[in-house]
């Protein structure tokens, strides 16, 4: 998170933080473990009123601006989501709202995403071997006045709660994006099991799904740039959320080191452990720093955005999980129990590490970006 916030940004952050402290305490997260949706409609709508889903929407579509860089503002909410391991499809709903607004599509749906009465999901990833930013295999064909979709998307967040799905598919050699109402014939949503207590994912199958040609966001086969933009938005938000979870786990573990005594001394007095805390401090600040720079670059659509985003995902992905696993180790046995809160954050960083490309995938993506630059220069 940025070291300095404007008073408006700080108000947005602290309002979200207070709301989550009240409505998403650890006990509530544990209760939601067996809930089908993983969050309540009332919770989501009240959060939406705070601005959770309005920041990436253009002002002409009713979007809200805090600092003029909506993505930077939204990372504050994502950070607090991480710090509280909060429920709700923050990333996917915002990405879909941003995509629709950028395409000038479906103002009604944008409105209901902003007021929290609707949820939408981005159907991007596919199963192995196409997972991890691999090839998009879902086929979008044009037949008369209709688009026909065939393929399988997974994991899709909160698909069972959605009214609409934004589907990224392939038409020939190019990408196409289509907005599909979830209840459309041929769409099936099968819940998956997963590691997070409140985040739900599904396999969504498109079996000869037919929608009007006007459901496409832009010309067929030309959505590559839009998909890249959505990917950058989603990656920044995933990283910001991971940084929040890292901060929560670190703060909790630092306190533990001062409170816990072994052999008549606090853990915080052992140099072997002090140095591990020093390294964790460096990882934590580095994760804050790269995520904030990536957020700024993506918000400004700067040329270095793609590189910074992948550097953030590679770094925060690796060191987010490494830091929280260190926190577990420093807690000892209590750190691997369900009763302790640490696993709430471990689940969250593990999810953020893996969705939309593992650190390894993003390192290779960075190598390609470097190669492109070096070939041009």
């Amino acid at each position, binding site marked *: 998170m940025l070291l300095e916030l404007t008073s408006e940004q700080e108000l947005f952050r602290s309002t979200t933080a207070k709301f989550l402290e009240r409505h998403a305490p650890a006990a509530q997260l544990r209760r939601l473990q067996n809930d089908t949706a993983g969050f309540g409609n009332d919770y989501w709508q009240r959060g939406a009123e705070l601005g959770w889903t309005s920041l990436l929407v253009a002002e002409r579509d009713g979007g809200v601006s805090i600092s003029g860089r909506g993505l930077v503002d939204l990372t504050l909410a994502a950070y607090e989501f991480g710090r509280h391991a909060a429920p709700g499809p923050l990333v996917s709903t915002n990405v879909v709202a941003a995509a629709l607004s950028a395409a000038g599509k479906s103002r009604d749906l944008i409105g209901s995403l902003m007021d929290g009465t609707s949820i939408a999901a981005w159907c991007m990833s596919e199963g192995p071997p196409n997972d991890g930013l691999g090839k998009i295999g879902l086929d979008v064909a044009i037949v008369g006045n209709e688009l026909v979709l065939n393929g399988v998307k997974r994991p899709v967040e909160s698909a069972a709660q959605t009214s609409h799905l934004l589907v990224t598919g392939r038409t020939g050699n190019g990408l196409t994006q289509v907005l599909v109402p979830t209840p459309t014939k041929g769409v099936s949503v099968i819940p998956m099991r997963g590691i997070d207590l409140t985040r739900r994912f599904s396999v969504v199958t498109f079996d000869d799904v037919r929608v009007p040609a006007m459901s496409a966001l832009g010309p067929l086969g030309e959505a590559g740039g839009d998909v890249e933009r959505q990917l950058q938005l989603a990656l920044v938000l995933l990283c910001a959320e991971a940084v929040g979870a890292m901060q929560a786990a670190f703060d909790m573990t*630092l306190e533990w080191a001062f409170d816990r005594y072994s052999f008549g001394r606090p853990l915080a007095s052992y140099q072997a452990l002090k*140095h591990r805390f020093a390294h964790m*401090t460096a990882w934590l600040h580095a994760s804050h720093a790269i995520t904030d*720079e990536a957020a700024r670059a993506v918000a400004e659509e700067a040329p270095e955005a793609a590189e910074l985003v992948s550097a953030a995902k*590679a770094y925060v992905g690796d060191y987010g999980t490494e830091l929280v696993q260190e926190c577990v180790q420093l807690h000892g046995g209590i750190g691997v129990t369900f009763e302790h809160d640490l696993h709430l954050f471990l689940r969250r960083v593990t999810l953020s590490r893996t969705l939309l490309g593992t650190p390894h995938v993003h*390192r290779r993506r*960075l190598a390609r970006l470097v190669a492109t630059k070096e070939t041009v220069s």
Partner: protein
Amino acid sequence: MSGEVESIASFRERARAFIRSNLRPATKKAVSSTLRPARADEEELAAVAHERRLQRTFFDGGLAGICVPRAYGGQELTPAHQMVLNAELRGYEYPSRVQVPTFTPILSVLLEFGTEEQKLARIPAILKGEELWMQFLSEPSCGSDVAGAVTTAVRSGNEWVLNGSKVWTTGAWWSDWALCLTRTNWDAPKHAGLTVFMFPIKTPGIEVGRIEMLNGSKEFCQEFLSDVRVPDTNRIGGVDDGWTVGTRWMFHERMARNSPLVTAPEGEIRAGGTGATMHAIARAAGRLEDPSAQALIGEAQTLHLVGGALRRRIGHGIVTRTLSDQSSAIARLFIGLAEARRTTVAFELAGEAGVAWTNGDGDLAEWGVDFLIRQATCIGGGTTEMAANVISERVLKMPREEAHDRDRPFRDVPRKSKRA
């Protein structure tokens, strides 16, 4: 000062105009590493002379000492102006050897602790590139434990007589002045018997030797001080109060390129190599299509970008006081380890040509030598272990390590193993 502070916008215009008409583009090499042995002495001396002239050009252009008071020849502007200059300097040559340690920590220490006469005498000469300084700090018997200095200064009338040895001074053989930490009282506790002096390196009694590093570099020096006479007017701070100066000295040293006194192109990389470096090595090795090589290139670029972002965050936080001064140790720890890792990555990509090469191996050659001296980035300027101590004890406020060198006369502090 009178009048208003120059606006950032007008300063930027002025800096741009200056850079365009006075500086050459930085020489761009596909592969570079500061771990590589330096060039021949004549070339090094020519480079030093060129940088002195460059510094003079900055001075004449009103762009030297951005945050230094006008009374001492500076511009009396703000850290924000310095950041603008650094941003505008991207891709251009600049006087790199003048920055660390001359501008920080030494100029910072002079500004904080020098008398008015000392500042008036030394600082304008520094800003004009006439005086390059070195820190006489580490000693053969104490590296990280700098307060354990045993180089002794004894008073003799209006003078002090210094005896001892200092080490790890980069480029002392072409430098002009030194800032030196000495012991003036062996009966006081360790931190209460130190005093700081400044003097020209050419003072009689100082012998400068060059240390050959394992990679052939001879940039580091060791000085032997034999009855070196220094006037009391060259004392910085109080007698036996040198640790007050010393703690700030260490702080300014850790600030390094985060210091608002340092002029250096934003994002410039000094060691370790970027993704572009690794790309060049992998290309020379014909490994660009190898997924594991791609992952290594990406890892180096990640560390490069994250290190830059972290440096900016910490620097900004210290300037705006949202982070404590001690937080500079966080950047030091990260960057030391990240540079060491990048050296390993380069060596890995180079393969066998890294350990045995021909003149035709180009970008692949020599990386094994860099690998041999890899740990230098985690040692020089305070080890990463010391940085970890500072972070845990000063930033996180964890209990300090037990020490056996406080509350007893320094002469009684154990300094040698009792093992036979």
